[in-house]
């Protein structure tokens, strides 16, 4: 939950680094939004610092470092899957007989931290044939549009990829 933990207990150096990283990130974002006009920083500077402070305030206490290589490999994987997700829905919606066979599937998530889980949950909703419907404890309820699809193996593959984004290796195996 955001805000439940205040970042007070972290050492000062870590907090400063995190603040600095956020300042740089939001400054880049501001220059994307407002262009390279120097005068825009009259508003930009307060906005960037407010956004950075707000973001730091809500940041989770434990760090979840990203792995750049994993992220780079995740993007094409995700784009490909979400494209096929769109095509799949288009086929079902336009076909006269509407091949639907929906149902609920449960899946045990082994990702440990909230940001990773949320990334998984959000990506599942864009995959072909699945949306994440509920999540409590480590148990994920998935609504699938076609029960004959290999839901479990797709989600498992996605989970390993998400873990790779955060530089983790999951112990893979059968359910």
């Amino acid at each position: 939950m955001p805000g439940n933990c205040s970042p007070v207990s972290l050492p000062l150096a870590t907090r400063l680094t995190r603040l600095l990283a956020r300042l740089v990130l939001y400054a880049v974002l501001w220059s994307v939004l407002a262009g390279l006009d120097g005068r825009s920083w009259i508003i930009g500077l307060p906005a960037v610092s407010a956004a950075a402070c707000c973001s730091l305030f809500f940041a989770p206490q434990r760090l979840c470092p990203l792995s750049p290589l994993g992220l780079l490999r995740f993007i094409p994987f995700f784009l490909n899957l979400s494209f096929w997700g769109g095509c799949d829905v288009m086929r079902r919606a336009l076909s006269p007989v509407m091949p639907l066979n929906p149902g609920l599937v449960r899946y045990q998530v082994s990702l440990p931290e909230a940001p990773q889980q949320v990334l998984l949950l959000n990506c599942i909703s864009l995959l072909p044939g699945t949306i994440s419907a509920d999540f409590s404890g480590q148990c994920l309820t998935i609504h699938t549009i076609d029960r004959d699809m290999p839901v479990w193996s797709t989600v498992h593959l996605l989970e390993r990829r998400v873990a790779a984004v955060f530089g983790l290796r999951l112990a893979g195996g059968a359910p």
Partner: protein
Amino acid sequence: MMDAMGIFDMVLALALPWLGWRLLASPDLFRAMVLFISLGLLMALTWVRLQAPDVALAEAAIGAGLTGALFLSALRRLERLSEAERRLAFAGKREEEDEIPPERHRRAKPVAYGLALLLLAVFVLLLAWSLAQTPAGGGLGPAVGEQLGQSGVRSEVTAVLLNFRGYDTLLEVMVLFLAALGVWSLTRVRLPLQDEEPGPVLATLVRLLAPLMIMVAGYLVWIGGSRAGGAFQGGAVLAAAGVLLLLANVTVVRQIPAALLRWGLALGPLLFLLTAVVCVAAGGNLLEYPPQRAGAWILLIESASAVSIGVTLAALYAGGRPPEPPAQDRGGEQGPGRDADADAGGRQ
């Protein structure tokens, strides 16, 4: 010209009243409100077609989004109340016959209907009359275009809002402030607004979006000087961030000191009023900025108003004054009244 876009215009112009009719005729209030939100979005599309991008932004953010959220939360509150009442009735309390008898209702109908028709006819006549009175080729467009150079901004709408007709906007900010005062003096907000846990997805979404919304609000205020945007749109985005925080049941929101909220509420109106007074004191008219500094003044007022509008709209969504702090004793309770009085006194 009249081909594709003309047909689009016609469909859009027909869809608006049709949606309005469906909305009022639907027996289910929840459905009516969803239809209202979609009507607001279609209105935003209409503003774009009518070359009013500023209005389109404001309509999409405030007219559709925020008003819809207000309606939905009010409906939820009413339903929760009536649920409690129903339980009470079933528990053995005899319900009283306080319903308006249907006969009286039916008898009142033709009168009301006739009155509506009469009012409508009068209005149509007035409108036709005033449209006929409008001088041909008139409008204030050319006049605004001429004076735009010395307004300090490059966007016509912002120039009208904050320079040429600044007193309108001043009064309007005051209306917003008064609305917040009214709501605050009526009830106290009951947090959390949601009964159930928000869940990790909503929590992460809020964490991600709240800083981005602050950035976008700043961008809208900045871009208001030259293109579509401004204090209202920026303030609406800030308010949306506030609504999101309230919905996600973030604990930080509950810990914001009430004094800070009050200052946020009053910042825009106070600064606006101060500017107006300073302008008069410097020998000009109300809100007649010095021409060289006009741009800076407008930017200052706009940023302050954006913050205030954001806080005000979020407070209106919360629907009451901040809850009592749990740790402190009654000292905090005296505060709001005194401060509000001071603000009201300062305005007169």
